[in-house]
């Protein structure tokens, strides 16, 4: 590779890690956020199940 060509692309290799890091962190943060939302949904569904039991227990108790 003649020196001039090397000079033209001199910054490519050193800058690579930063570009990869930028996109990786961005994608990671998005993933973390989606996981947070989904886990929130799961937690709410679990509470919903507990609630339904409580309601059934209440109905059960009353109707007997």
């Amino acid at each position: 590779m003649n020196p001039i060509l090397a000079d033209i692309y001199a910054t490519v290799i050193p800058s690579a890690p930063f570009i990869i890091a930028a996109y990786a962190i961005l994608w990671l943060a998005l993933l973390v956020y989606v996981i947070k939302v989904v886990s929130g949904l799961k937690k709410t569904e679990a509470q919903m199940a507990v609630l339904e039991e409580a309601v059934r227990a209440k109905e059960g108790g009353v109707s007997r």
Partner: protein
Amino acid sequence: MVEKKVRIPEAGQWPDKLALPALAAGAVLTTVGFLMAFLFAAPVNGAALDTPELVNGVMVTHQQLISQKIFYFHMPVAIVSFVMLIFSAYYGIRFLTTREQRFDTCSRVAMELTLLFVIFTMVTGDLWTRFEWGVWWTWEPRLTTYLILMLIVIAYFVMRNSIDDPERRATYASVISLIAFVDVPICFMITRLIPSSVHPVIAREGGMTPDMAATVLVVMIGMMLVAFGLYRLRFREARLAERLQALKDQLED
């Protein structure tokens, strides 16, 4: 006194049907944009060469920089974060005028996404600065503005967690979102207009070649769709939690 019919945003209406397709479209567009950034858009000229070189038929006179590629995600994400702040302030106003708790939830969710996208902007901007000027942080106007926006949004959430009464919390949150909405443009303007006597900043903005503009546009639309999808998803989740809480309270009566 007829209560003016206030259209209250509710989860599960037509916007929700669009949420998932928007998220999918957004994902597709951003990946396309990502590929375009590297393959389609020409690299930016860096430092001038001592002697120009003929490279596959094109006379190259400058170092070819690819660190600039971060820009294609950095700018759209920054703009989306400010769009989210606008939504948050808008719902803040709606809450203050109608006192409807639902608007406060919308404002909170929009502010959450503002924080998310501001973090994206900070990450991409900072890494770009790190390579561009070799230092982790410079008090360069653009970066400082976004640091301030991030601090205000964090303060917004810290305040929300320290007030229990929903009515008061919602009012204070809406007021803070409005003040932030006014404060950020001023901060943006002041930090750029004041000649920073410390060290002159080489503004790289410069004009955008058509192919660059195309890439940015693709990523922009993609990011907008992703933001919209996330907003609806998060809003539904928040509404579900609220409805559940209301049910629990009724059960206790």
